[in-house]
C-alpha cells in the first residue's frame, strides 16, 4: 500500500508541473502564436499605452519563455514582486497571479470563492451518488417494470437538459411560482439554515444531471454483473438475495463507478460553474464570468490553475479509495 501511495504521489507531483506548464502555455504561448499582444490582454483592451508597457515589463514578457515559466512557478511557492513601469507590486505566496485591472492579487479572490464552489460540488456529489446509484440498482433489479421505465425516462431527460436551464426552471417554479425557497445566497457564517435553504436548489440542480448519468450506468453495470456466473453460484449455494446483491453484486458495480467519479470531477467543476451562474452564487464560476466580462485574464488563469489542482488532489483521494475497495489495483 505504501509503495502504491508513493507512486501515486509522485505521479501527482509530475501532473502538477505539467498543469502549470499547460496553463502557462494557454495564457502566454498561444496568444503569442496567434499574434495577440499578451500585455494588452492582461490589462484590458482599453488601457493606456503606458500601463500596457508597465505590465509588459512587470510580467517579464521580453524574457525567454523558460524564465517566464520559472518566475510564474516560483511565485506560487515563494511569492513574486512585479517591478516595472516605475512601480513595483508585491504578490505574497502563494501567488497565483495579480489582476492589473482590479489591482488585487488573485489568491484572496480564489480563497474567498473556493468554499462556495466546493460546498456546491460536494453536496451535489453526495446527493447524486445516493439517488443515482440507488435508482440504477433498483431499476436493474426490477428490469422492465414501470419503475424501471419511469426512472430511465427521467434519467434520459436529465442528461439531455442543460444544467443552467434546469436551474432557471427550478428558480422560476420553486422560488417565483411556489415561493418555497428564498432563492438568495446566504453566507455560511451568517446563518446555517439560511445557507442551507439557499443551497438546496443548486445542489439538486447540479445533482440531477449526474444522478441521471449514474443511474443509467449503474443500471447497465448491475445488469451485466447479475448475469455473471459467480452471482449464479452465490444464489445456488443458498445465499440470501440480500447478500447476493449487497455483498457480491454491489462490490463489482462500485469499482467502475469509482473510476467514473474520478474522471467526472473535472467535468463537475464545469457543471458547478454553470450552476453558480444560474443561481448567482458567489463561487469560482461567478469569478470567471466576471473576469470574462472585464477581460481580466489573470483571474481566469488563477481559477483554471486552482481548480486543476483541486481536481488533482481529489483524483488522488479517489485513487487511494479505489485501492482500498479493490486490492488488485495496488499491484497494477
Amino acid at each position: 500500500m505504501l509503495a502504491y501511495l508513493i507512486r501515486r504521489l509522485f505521479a501527482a507531483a509530475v501532473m502538477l508541473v505539467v498543469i502549470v506548464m499547460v496553463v502557462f502555455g494557454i495564457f502566454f504561448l498561444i496568444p503569442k502564436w496567434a499574434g495577440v499582444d499578451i500585455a494588452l490582454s492582461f490589462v484590458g483592451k482599453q488601457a493606456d499605452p503606458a500601463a500596457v508597457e508597465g505590465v509588459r515589463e512587470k510580467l517579464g514578457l521580453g524574457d525567454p519563455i523558460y524564465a517566464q515559466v520559472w518566475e510564474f512557478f516560483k511565485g506560487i511557492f515563494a511569492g513574486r514582486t512585479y517591478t516595472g513601469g516605475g512601480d513595483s507590486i508585491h504578490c505574497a505566496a502563494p501567488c497565483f497571479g495579480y489582476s492589473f485591472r482590479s489591482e488585487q492579487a488573485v489568491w484572496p479572490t480564489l480563497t474567498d470563492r473556493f468554499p462556495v464552489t466546493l460546498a456546491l460540488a460536494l453536496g451535489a456529489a453526495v446527493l447524486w451518488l445516493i439517488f443515482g446509484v440507488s435508482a440504477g440498482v433498483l431499476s436493474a433489479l426490477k428490469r422492465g417494470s414501470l419503475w424501471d421505465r419511469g426512472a430511465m425516462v427521467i434519467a434520459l431527460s436529465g442528461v439531455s437538459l442543460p444544467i443552467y436551464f434546469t436551474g432557471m426552471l427550478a428558480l422560476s417554479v420553486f422560488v417565483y411560482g411556489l415561493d418555497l425557497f428564498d432563492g438568495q445566497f446566504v453566507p455560511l457564517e451568517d446563518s446555517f439554515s439560511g445557507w442551507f435553504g439557499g443551497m438546496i436548489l443548486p445542489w439538486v440542480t447540479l445533482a440531477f444531471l449526474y444522478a441521471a448519468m449514474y443511474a443509467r450506468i449503474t443500471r447497465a453495470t448491475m445488469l451485466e454483473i447479475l448475469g455473471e456466473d459467480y452471482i449464479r453460484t452465490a444464489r445456488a449455494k443458498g445465499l440470501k438475495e440480500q447478500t447476493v446483491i449487497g455483498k457480491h453484486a454491489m462490490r463489482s458495480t462500485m469499482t467502475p463507478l469509482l473510476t467514473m467519479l474520478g474522471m467526472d470531477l473535472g467535468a463537475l467543476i464545469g457543471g458547478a460553474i454553470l450552476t453558480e451562474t444560474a443561481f448567482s452564487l458567489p463561487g469560482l464560476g461567478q469569478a470567471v464570468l466576471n473576469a470574462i466580462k472585464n477581460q481580466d485574464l489573470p483571474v481566469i488563469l488563477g481559477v483554471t490553475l486552482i481548480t486543476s489542482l483541486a481536481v488533482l488532489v481529489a483524483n488522488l483521494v479517489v485513487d487511494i479509495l479505489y485501492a482500498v475497495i479493490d486490492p488488485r489495483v495496488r499491484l497494477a
Partner: protein
Amino acid sequence: MTAPLHEPTAEAAPSAAEEASVATSGAKAVQGRSLGRIAWERLKRDKLALTGGIVVLLLVVVALLAPVITSLLGQDPNEYHENLIDPLFGTPTGSLGGVSGDHLLGVEPVNGRDILARVLYGARISLLVGFLSAVVAVILGTVLGILAGFFGGWVDSLISRVMDGLLAFPQLLFIIALVSVMPNDMLGLTGSNVRVFVMILVIGFFGWPYIGRVVRGQTLSLREREYVEAARSLGAGRLYILFKELLPNLVAPIVVYTTMMIPTNILTEAALSFLGVGVKPPTASWGQMLSSAIDYYESDPMYMVVPGVAIFITVLAFNLFGDGIRDALDPKASR
C-alpha cells in the same frame, strides 16, 4: 463539458424474442449480411431511436433552411420590434411573451426581436459546432487511439497518459480559457465566425480522448485476433493490417461514440455561449438567448423556455438516436 461521455451502457438491448426472430430469419436466408445491414434491421425495430433519428434529420433540414423559413414567415432574426415592448417593464406586451400570428413564439424583451427566427438561426450554430467538433475529435481520437493500441510501448504510455490527463482536467474551464485568449480575427475570419471556428477546434480537441480510449482498447484486443495473426503470417505489412484488417472493425465503435459525442458538444457550445465566450451578439445562439433570459425568468418565462426546450429536444433526439445506434451496432447486444 458538463455531460461527459461514458462507456456505452448496454441497456435497451433487443429482447430475446426479437433476437430469436433475427436469428431465424438469418437462418432462412443463408447468406452473409454486412454489419450495416444487421444494424439497420435492428434499428428499424427500435421506435424510440427512429423517432430520435427523424427529429435529428428534421433539425438539420430546419437549420439548413433557416433563412428560407424565416423569410417565408416574414421575419428577420435581427429586426427590432420595439412597438411590441411594454416601455415600463421592458417585457413584451400581450400574453405568453408576445405570442401572436406574426411572432409564433413571441418576441424578446427590450428590443422585440422575433424569438422563432432567432431559435431557427441558433440551430445552425449548435448543429454546426456539434457536428464539426465531433469530426475533429473523431479524427484525432482514431489516429492517436490506433497509434497507441497498435504500436504499444512508449507510444502507448505517452498517448494514454495524455488522454488520462485531458479527461481529468476541468475541461469547461480550459475551453473558456482557450476561447478567451484567442484573437478577435484570424485566418481572414471575423466576429462570430472566429468564435465558431475556435469552439469547433477546442471542443473537438477536448473530446478526442473519449474516442481515443475506446479505439485504443479495441485495437489492443483486435490485434491479437487470429485473423490478424493469419494476415501477418501471410506476410501482410503493418499498413495493410492497419487499414484492411483493423480499421473496418473499428468503424462500429467509432460511429457509436461519434453519435454520442454530438449532443455533448452541442451542450458545451450552448454552455460557452451562455457564459459569454461563445458566438458574439447579434448572432443568435441558444446558449446566449438563455443567458439573456436569465434576467427575465420571473417577468417573461417564455423567453427562457423556447431556447431551453430547443436545446432539450435536440440533445434528447441525438441521445435517443445514439442509444439506438449503439444497441444496433454493439456486438454484445446479440448475447
